[in-house]
């Protein structure tokens, strides 16, 4: 079995930066449970796609053997810094680059000191692999790629892992409903911005819990349009691609608001 675990997790850094705030603390606790589940699946590598790593020209793959530094979020800088220190599975990454090109997807390696690692990637890496034990394959969200292209990317990455004999955990980093509060709020009272968004999020999570792949794929475009789902919910497309379009259910480790937007920590049953 190549894919031994799969997760959909939020990219907002707020649960990592301020877990003492109860609504965000619940997301953080869910993240920690997902981290334990990931460890128990004993993957060799974590394959991670983040909606917040925006690419425009190509599909970018992080190829630097070790990326370390200090990131400050553009919006949430007053809650603190985001240090990171990540090992990259360069062999698998090289395979993904080659496979992207073979699939007709223009791709490039990123190997630069100081390259900005996005808040979503750092948040997921810190929660799911806090001890830095596992290496990553990190890839970007090309804003011009649609659902199908993103699914293909997930599939080709899993295919490369299969050929290399790797056990991988797949992680799609991104939010649910995208509406955020646009003014200062009392963060202790954070909630999903509207009841319509909340209903949409719960509907999608219910479909995931039931393992209704066809249902969630059918609903995703409307979810994206009506609930401003983060980046068209493409992080799910990446996961589905890697899973060959199959999972049997999901465990929702956490669901709640991050400054009005919807966030969930979801573990897929494979």
């Amino acid at each position, binding site marked *: 079995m190549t894919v031994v675990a799969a997760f959909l997790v939020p990219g907002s850094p707020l649960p990592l930066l301020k877990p003492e705030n109860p609504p965000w603390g619940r997301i953080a606790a869910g993240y920690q449970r997902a981290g334990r589940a990931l460890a128990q699946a004993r993957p060799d590598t974590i394959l991670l796609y983040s909606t917040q790593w925006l*690419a425009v020209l190509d599909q970018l793959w992080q190829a630097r053997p070790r990326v370390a530094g200090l990131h400050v979020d553009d919006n949430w800088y007053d809650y603190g810094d985001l240090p990171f220190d990540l090992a990259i599975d360069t062999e698998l990454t090289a395979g993904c680059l080659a496979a992207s090109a073979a699939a007709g997807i223009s791709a490039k390696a990123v190997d630069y000191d100081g390259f900005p690692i996005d808040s979503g990637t750092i948040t997921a890496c810190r929660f799911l692999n806090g001890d830095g034990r596992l290496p990553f394959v990190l890839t970007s969200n090309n804003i011009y790629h649609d659902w199908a292209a993103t699914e293909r990317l997930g599939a080709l990455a899993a295919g490369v892992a299969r050929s290399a004999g790797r056990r991988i955990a797949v992680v799609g980093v991104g939010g649910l409903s995208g509406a955020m509060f646009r003014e200062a709020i009392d963060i202790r009272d954070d909630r999903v911005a509207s009841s319509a968004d909340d209903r949409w999020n719960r509907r999608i999570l219910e479909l995931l819990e039931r393992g209704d792949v066809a249902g969630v794929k059918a609903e995703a475009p409307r979810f994206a349009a009506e609930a401003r789902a983060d980046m068209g919910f493409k992080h799910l497309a990446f996961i589905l691609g890697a899973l060959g379009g199959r999972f049997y259910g999901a465990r929702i480790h956490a669901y709640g608001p991050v400054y009005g937007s919807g966030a969930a920590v979801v573990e897929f049953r494979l």
Partner: protein
Amino acid sequence: MAQGEIVAGFLAPHPPHLVYGENPAQNEPRSQGGWEPLRWAYERARKSLDELKPDVLLVHSPHWMTHVGHHFLGVRNLSGKSVDPIFPNLFRYTFDLTVDVELAEACCAEAAEAGLVTKMMRNPNFRVDYGTITTLHMIRPQWDIPIVGISANNSPYYLNTKEGLGEMDILGKATRRAIEKTGRRAVLLASNTLCHLHFHEEPATPEDMSQEHPQNYDGYKWDMRIIDLLRRGRTREVFDLLPQFIEEAFAEIKSGAFTWMFAAMGYPEIPGELHGYGTVIGTGNAVMEWNLVKAGLTRGGGVLARAG
């Protein structure tokens, strides 16, 4: 304290290719040049800026995008390495800049007073975005004038163009009041590209200018129409056309810097000076200047604003 004034505004786009083409010591990658007409346009703009002798440069950048309000750099000294996430092969720049915190705080307070959500950025580890850095490097590579950095609130995208640019108008007018109250002699920099339609692949040699041309003919025609109107001082007409231009040419001025700058200057109906136009990976970029001193619109006490 004498009343401050805005002495000029520049449309000052930020493709990192321009810094790459210049080969400054601060940027790691080396080039064989490229995009000369735009870089020479900036050379002309620099001369003009030099004559204006401003106390401060204010820049509004679309690459510091904020969700909750309009943010202002609020740390006196910021330094570090800025790597462009889209063009890391071209832009890995070591920056070290000085912020006019007093003016930034005044802008923040005035904008809040006008009803906008605002915030001061106080984290000393904050990495300044490449749009801000590129515009500032290209207009004043000496880095010897303090700056005010302003984020682009995502309201034009999150709400709609009209509402979003309405916020930028309020922000611009608040910026002017802050400049006047703090006694600064200020230059405004709108860090925006015009037509933003671009190629999806980079040439093997990025500075191979045989590959550089407008990505879209209709977009190019839009740019020329807007520049022509701006050169003739038909500002009101430009702003009437702005929503259509933004929609059809995917113009980056949607992010607000252009509106912010013109609102701060009082939407003067004066001819803008085109220092140069050129494409970068197919996008349209103009370096333009509205010199309020030459136009007789300064009096040592603020811009004679049409739209107060």
